[in-house]
């Protein structure tokens, strides 16, 4: 029964990873940029909510009303000042510039807030630990369930945005072929800036849930980036629903790993990530090779 419980906790944890990863996946899908400051930006949003809650007693969910637009604005500026320029300078430059940004953000947070670990859990009443108990002593935390629901809602929202709206059409056009999109009147630069802003809105929400479910400190960002990246790659880079699957696979692996060994949480996550990467590289190659040999065979 303990394994069933771990499995369910893993799925719920996966909801958080999907939430964290959807902005990363979205930006990669649209601009082919992997934003190495992704995790650090989620931590920035968390500190924003923390300051609102601590100073002015603003409930984190209310605080999001201010933090989400602020992060969107930040995303727009980020694209205009950093991403746009570096993407034009070459494929590898965004990696370097966003890595530099992450170092600046992490250490600035340390300068401003010190090394103390913080959490938003004290500011959300009993939601932090409220739960339902299912038969077999399986505990369903309300916050993890809410996280999973928000992740699904956000992914569905992004999907609808891309599939149904005018902005979504422009984003898809600019993602496929910016030059041609430009010819038919889509301003690729503006569309990319808007996409970055949208990604940062999801990052703000992810930061809120990160801070409610656990503690964070100025150097939490890089670890969150790695989790988000693993979820994106496991699920298939750039695919939104794949990100949900990827997050859940990662969450389940970590949760089961933790049951096996005290250090197993991180190790299992990384191992599953690398195993899936390896399998995708070799199995897909093997299958292609096999199909080619079949085609060649009869002729």
């Amino acid at each position, binding site marked *: 029964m303990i394994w069933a419980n771990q499995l369910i906790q893993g799925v719920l944890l996966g909801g958080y990873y999907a939430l964290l990863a959807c902005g990363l996946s979205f930006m*990669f899908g649209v601009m*082919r*940029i*992997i934003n*190495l400051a992704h995790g650090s930006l989620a931590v920035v949003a968390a500190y924003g909510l923390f300051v609102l809650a601590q100073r002015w007693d603003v409930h984190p969910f209310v605080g999001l009303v201010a933090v989400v637009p602020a992060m969107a604005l930040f995303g727009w500026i980020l694209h205009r000042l*950093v991403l746009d*320029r*570096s993407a034009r*300078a*070459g*494929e*590898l*430059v*965004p*990696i*370097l*510039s966003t*890595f*530099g*940004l*992450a*170092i*600046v953000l992490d*250490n*600035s947070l*340390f*300068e401003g807030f010190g090394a103390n670990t913080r959490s938003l859990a004290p500011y959300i009443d009993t939601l932090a630990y409220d739960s339902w108990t299912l038969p077999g002593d399986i505990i369903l935390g309300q916050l993890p369930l809410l996280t999973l629901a928000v992740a699904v809602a956000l992914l569905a929202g992004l999907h609808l945005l891309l599939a149904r709206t005018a902005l979504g059409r422009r984003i898809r056009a600019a993602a496929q072929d910016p030059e041609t999109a430009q010819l038919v009147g889509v301003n690729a630069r503006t569309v990319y800036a808007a996409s970055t802003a949208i990604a940062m809105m999801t990052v703000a929400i992810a930061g809120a849930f990160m801070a409610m479910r656990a503690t964070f400190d100025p150097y939490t960002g*890089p670890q969150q*980036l*790695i989790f988000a*990246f*693993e979820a994106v*790659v496991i699920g298939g*880079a750039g695919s939104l629903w794949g990100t949900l699957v990827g997050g859940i696979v990662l969450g389940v692996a970590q949760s089961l790993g933790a049951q096996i060994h005290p*250090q197993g949480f*991180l*190790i299992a996550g*990384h*191992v599953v*990530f*690398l195993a899936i*990467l*390896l399998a995708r*590289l*070799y199995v897909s190659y093997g299958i292609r090779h096999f199909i080619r040999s079949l085609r060649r065979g009869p002729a």
Partner: protein
Amino acid sequence: MTTQPYTAPFAVQRWTSASIAAVGLVLAAQLLLALGPLLLSANLVDRLTTLFIYGILALMWNALAGYAGLVSVGQQVFFGLGAYAAVRLADAGVSAYPALLLGAVLVAGVSVPVSAFMLRLRGGEFAIGMWVVASLTHMLVNLDTLVQGETGTSLIALQSYSADDRRAYTYWAALATMAVLAWLVFFMLRGKVGAAAQAIRDNEGAAASIGIRVLPTKRLIFVLSAFGCAAAGALWVATSITFQPKTYFSVQWTAYMIFMVLVGGIGTYEGPILGAILFFTIETLFGGTGVAYLIGLGATAMLFALLLPRGIWGAVEQRLGLQLLPIGYRLMVGAADPERGGAAAAATTSATAVAKGASR
């Protein structure tokens, strides 16, 4: 109208009097530095050892990113493994200094299977993929009972040397490693491998289409870089004696490498050396300010990536046509005598020209 054949006098050159003088100076400086422990104060010897280790890291990251186009944010995996291998080997009875070298060789061996599938990832995926490998390796090293988790351990075998001997030996080991790797990279880049790697960096598909063997070339540089970073880690453990996994597998090391290479000049041979000296100077002056110093490093790296992507040496090379340690060839147009040709007409070989040279 018939096209006139281009008849302006031109010459292709590699060596200039300036570069011959520079290579001579570098050799002389290296020989002079070898006398360091006999002449300099203990503190200065320690500081120079640190500088040499930074030099190794910068050279290795530049060979990887600047020449093979492989941006990795996980090179700390080899730095940490190099230190860990040295500690493990010393514990098994190998004497301390041979353990440093043997450790680096073993890590280079480990990097071969790692390269087999990491090199199939592209761009940003390779970059963070390496970070995941580093993180996983860190966790696995923590499981070793010798290391005792984050508590760490020490390179106790070094106790058999007196403090002065240890300082001098570590200094010489660091200097020799840096010099050997620097000359190795120099001659490698001047040869077929360098031309092939740069062609791959600039356009992998085009490089493959003219017959460059993409994967073996990348692998060679990846393994070399792993060896260099491992040697640097092993040397670092020889200077600081304690081995704490958290410090050695920290992404900070890669941040330092990126800073040195970006500021000095990515994809230039002289750049990372300049970057290492600059970083060393900045650290000596501002390292005590802690966090503000790290913010400055990150911001500087970001600004260089955005505004001066070829770094300081790249700008110098472009403006003055100066190549002190010549890797490429230069086309001197309109100059019968290349020595008087003037820098303005000099052009370092373009990627395609280099690629043609490599295609055999």
